[in-house]
């Protein structure tokens, strides 16, 4: 039986009817068409589905939509403003940290969550902060440089 959930996604409140077995990742992609959130493995290993939930980055493929009831969610779509890309997104473009782009939404949200909590992370902390996000293209170094350029 469907359940009604209320949550805030990218500063907008939503009221949605969802099946209990729908994951947050699938709800974002298929019910709200927020397809910036990617799905790679669907089992918590790759980080492509990363979103920020109540201030913590999580694998949205391992959260049920019903578990997100009442929460505040940030997805990659929420970073862009009327002025364009967020500085962190610009840095990824600038430093060549994006190739195929499949990991980028998750990578950028993990980086954002890290910088929100720790504006001046060490090299080790940056590398650990993105260790839940796999990238098959860049070799991580350019991603590291993009994040480092945004630390204060």
């Amino acid at each position: 039986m469907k359940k009604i959930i209320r949550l805030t996604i990218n500063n907008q409140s939503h009221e949605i009817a969802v099946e209990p077995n729908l994951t947050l990742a699938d709800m974002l992609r298929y019910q709200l068409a927020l397809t910036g959130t990617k799905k790679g493995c669907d089992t918590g290993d790759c980080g492509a589905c990363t979103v920020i939930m109540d201030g913590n980055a999580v694998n949205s493929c391992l959260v049920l939509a019903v578990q997100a009831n009442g929460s505040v969610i940030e997805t990659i779509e929420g970073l862009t403003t009327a002025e364009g890309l967020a500085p962190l997104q610009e840095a990824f473009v600038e430093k060549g940290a994006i190739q195929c782009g499949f990991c980028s939404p998750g990578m950028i949200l993990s980086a954002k969550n890290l910088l929100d909590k720790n504006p001046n992370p060490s090299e080790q902390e940056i590398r650990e902060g993105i260790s839940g996000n796999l990238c098959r293209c860049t070799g991580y170094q350019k991603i590291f440089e993009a994040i480092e350029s945004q630390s204060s």
Partner: protein
Amino acid sequence: MLLPTFEFHEPLSIKDALKLKKSLGEDAKLLAGGTDLLVHLKKKLITTNNLISLSGIKALSLITKEKNAVIIGSCTTMTQLSSTPIIQKNFPALKAGCDNLGTHLIRNRATIGGNACNASPAGDTLPALLIYDALALLETSDKKREIPMADFFTGPGKSCIQPDEILTGFRLPIPGKNSGAHYIQLGKRKSSEINLVNVAAFLKYDPDTKKIIDARIALGSVAATPIRSPKAESTLMGQTPEEACFFAAGEMARREDCHPIDDFRGSARYRQAMVGVLTKRTLTRAYELARSACI
């Protein structure tokens, strides 16, 4: 990957959760962080018609201090435990276990109760629960019981929890002065890796006689469950804490106390050798911490 269809229940109190568990029977599964359960459901390793979410029960995600102990709610997450001062100060080996579990994305959801109930021999918080002499707090609708973690695990993926029971948390006695503990996990890579061997050690010494008066060692990934290492522990009692006796304890743990198997992650022989090395290293660090705490 599709999840099977199920009914979702979200009780707001332990009492209501226990009532639901009783009425829905063995088929109903408890959902904490979901990092094991949802993966198992997706992979069709288990199935259920009813999920009972514990997330709505505030009491289960509290960390509270009693006179000589700390109570950790079963639904506290790795991130929460690792950033709580009372855990950092009194239980560094547990903090190390939490910091090493999965990735930061997993740690934001994964709970300590889920780690214990999943009962993997390689579970990252489990050696620490063993060396701190934690008690598992179990509850049914009509009785409560406390089980030493040393008796909690009954096999890979199996524990002594009964179908109508819920693990509400753990009681960890606060280690006294002149004690220290440490945890090391060995894997092929640093992040999101199932451990090859993981070891925790606790040491307490008498500052007057300079002898060891309490020693506890726990080994992960080298038997059907996480285990204590009783023979290695007994070699340490009454000894002067120094390299030779830590080495001897490591040798004893390697030879007598562990029963690893070969699998695709590593050979039994390699694991056994690493038990010796890691036991010595955790003891050395536990002693350093014990000493620095009393200066």
